[in-house]
């Protein structure tokens, strides 16, 4: 019987490793209007997110955190993808990302190169790593809504 080849190439796509090594928008925003943070207590992954909202649109996003390649690359790519989107669009993006990972849905077109995370769906224990930044995003947007017209 042939020994199957290990299946992690699908998980560790080059784009993911590249963002892990050279995270984009890492740091704090001096003019952030909303902040949120989250952690996976079991594995210790941490992500915090700063957003600058302007007229219902995410003008800028930055993150800080520590953890595995999946959690950190996901947060890095998140900051690129939400910048310039309206709050409603960002929420829809988070929903599409979750559908791809949790429900195994084919990647929606708006996800663009976030489809690199599709392989994570086959590793149920790692799905929460990929979702961490997006859960923090949802919390940040909820915080912004609570703050009302300030943003």
């Amino acid at each position, binding site marked *: 019987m042939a*020994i*199957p080849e*290990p*299946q*992690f*190439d699908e*998980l*560790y796509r*080059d784009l993911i*490793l*590249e963002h892990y*090594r050279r995270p984009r928008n890492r740091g704090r925003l001096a003019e952030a209007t909303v902040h949120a943070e989250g952690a996976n207590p*079991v*594995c*210790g*992954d941490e992500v915090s997110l700063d957003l600058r909202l302007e007229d219902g649109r995410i003008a800028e996003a930055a993150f800080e955190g*520590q*953890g*595995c*390649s*999946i959690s950190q690359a996901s947060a890095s790519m998140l900051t690129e993808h939400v910048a310039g989107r309206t709050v409603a669009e960002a929420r829809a993006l988070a929903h599409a990302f979750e559908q791809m990972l949790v429900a195994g849905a084919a990647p929606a077109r708006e996800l663009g190169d976030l489809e690199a995370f599709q392989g994570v769906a086959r*590793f149920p*224990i*790692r799905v929460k*790593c990929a979702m961490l930044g997006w859960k923090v995003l949802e919390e940040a947007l909820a915080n912004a809504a609570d703050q009302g017209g300030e943003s």
Partner: protein
Amino acid sequence: MTLDTARIRVDFPILRRLVNGRPLVYLDNAATTQKPQCVIDALVRYYTTMNANVHRGIHTLAVEATEAYEGVREKVARFIGADGYGQVVFTRNATEALNLVARSWGEANLREGDEVVLTIMEHHSNIVPWQLVARRTGARLRYVDIRDDGTLDLDQLRQLVGTRTKVISLTHASNVLGTINPIADVAELARRQGAILVVDGAQSAPHLPIDVRSLGCDFFAFSAHKMLGPTGVGVLWARPGLLETMEPFLGGGEMISVVRPDESSWADVPHKFEAGTPNIADVIAFGAAIDYLSALGMANVRAHERELTAYALDRLASLPQVRIFGPMDPDLRGGVVAFSVEDVHPHDVATIVDQFGVAIRAGHHCAQLLARRLGVPATNRASFYLYNESREVDVLVDALKEAIEVFGRGDSRAAVR
């Protein structure tokens, strides 16, 4: 090798299964060990032929079940050198045993200003119960640090222990560093100060010959499932006279003598501490695990693991990207090796080696104080047992090379190194 692992492995059906298409290389024994067929059979045999509640029936099955259950208590006592000396209480696990001590002994004996001395290498199960009792009594927790080589800082321990010290509670063997602590030395210190000594034996009873008399401790706690037995059984051993003075931990059936509307009197020890129907089937199957270990001989188990650990330390140290935590001298440590891989997060390492059938742990290993002290949020941990072989260390090392390769892929920094 001291043990005939080829023969031993036949007794463990799970070791025949494939994981991701490859033979299972199970190196997560500090979390829980696999079970030999004789333990599985003992469970089935109990339910098939003997099932009855213990200590309250007159009928034949109840008598047989009670004799089997109490027989394991004697077997456990002999296994830890406590035959006829002190008491063995069955709990759910080592965690519950430590909670029992902290609650029942601690609440009766600790006052405001008293001190409980712990170490930085404790598992959360030997920290949180003391935090709870400290909050209720006003006692204070003090922590002994490790030296840079991962051994316990005995000099600091000697300084910390003083007239306020009422309890010293520490692990016999670290579940992260592997460090085996010099319990007899600590016992001497505790005795001089009149403090009690509680030993968490969860990582030592499965791997080392244990003699509670020569250790000189007052309480010794461990878990069946980390030593070939089923989950759901823990042991608390107590020095003679201690349990008799303590209040019950839980109330209910089994632990009473006479119940009246407003107060009751307690059963004799150890049953005073075993409220409700105990985990009869798993205790009886634990007896089969102890028989298996005794037949191999714990000195042989230790010698085998020492040899395997020395080999693993050597092989892992040959990878320049790997950093090993804990003492490098295999005489000072058990078969637990925590390590990190440069530029590869422990969860990524664990996912990649799993694809090669290798089961290791990644995380803080329920020892967050130690992880903080080591300055790492998480580590990888390979931990061995009597059925592991040096070729399995080779499989791990080859899989680690793969992880390093995957994470170095397309990395320009790696290319210029």
